[in-house]
């Protein structure tokens, strides 16, 4: 069942408020287009200073997880290997070029993701510690700051 956009927007507004402290600490550049149900966040790797841009498209949120896509900072090309970090403790899938986790809509086979074994409507139970944009972003920031998990850009 589709979620009314106003409901999705209300979730986004709350979550944008909640992530402010972490955004300030890591100097994220947060751009919200709430009419489009879209949030874009620019952040850096502490390992090599690389800049990453990630977009959260939140239609049908939170009945479905956000549609997460990385964007090349300069060319603005979407979903390319150059846009994505490499590694990431399993978050960044090199064959499908997507965020591969239950909190990412593109991780599901219905959107050409790797997982036919997940039910998208159950995403918050499958991924209970990453149920908000801020919690997802905290994980992304952590993995690109950690040389164990981060190997530069995919391409």
């Amino acid at each position, binding site marked *: 069942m589709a979620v009314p956009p106003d409901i999705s927007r209300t979730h986004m507004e709350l979550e944008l408020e*909640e*992530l*402010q*402290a*972490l955004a300030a*600490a*890591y100097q994220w550049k947060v751009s919200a287009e709430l009419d489009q149900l879209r949030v874009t966040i620019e952040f850096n790797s*502490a390992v090599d200073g690389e800049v990453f841009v990630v977009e959260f498209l939140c239609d049908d949120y939170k009945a479905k997880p956000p549609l997460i896509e990385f964007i090349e900072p300069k060319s603005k090309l979407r979903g390319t290997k150059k846009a994505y970090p490499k590694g*990431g*403790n*399993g*978050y*960044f899938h090199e064959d499908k070029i997507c965020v*591969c*986790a*239950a*909190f990412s809509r593109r*991780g599901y086979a219905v959107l050409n993701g*790797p*997982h036919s074994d997940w039910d998208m409507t159950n995403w918050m139970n*499958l*991924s*209970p*510690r*990453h149920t*908000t*944009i*801020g*919690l*997802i*972003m*905290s*994980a992304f*920031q*952590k*993995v690109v*700051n*950690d040389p164990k*998990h981060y190997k530069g850009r995919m391409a």
Partner: protein
Amino acid sequence: MEQKTITVQILTGKGPAKTYTVPQQTKVSDLIATAVSDFGLPPGDSYTLTRQSNEEELSPERPLVSYHLADNEILVLTDVTGGA
């Protein structure tokens, strides 16, 4: 004898920072458990605390005092499991 304490700030992606003043000998894992509860996060043993200043991850079994943290140092509570 009065216990020495340490004050740290903990950040997550969910809400403003919370300040904790705890005995210096507090184990990292105990502070994590308290913060997870206070932030309303689901319990689990996969959370970590990381120093925001230098990205050093704190070992859960060690006492806070062993890290020589600065007063009011910012620690970031994160979980990076779930990648598939």
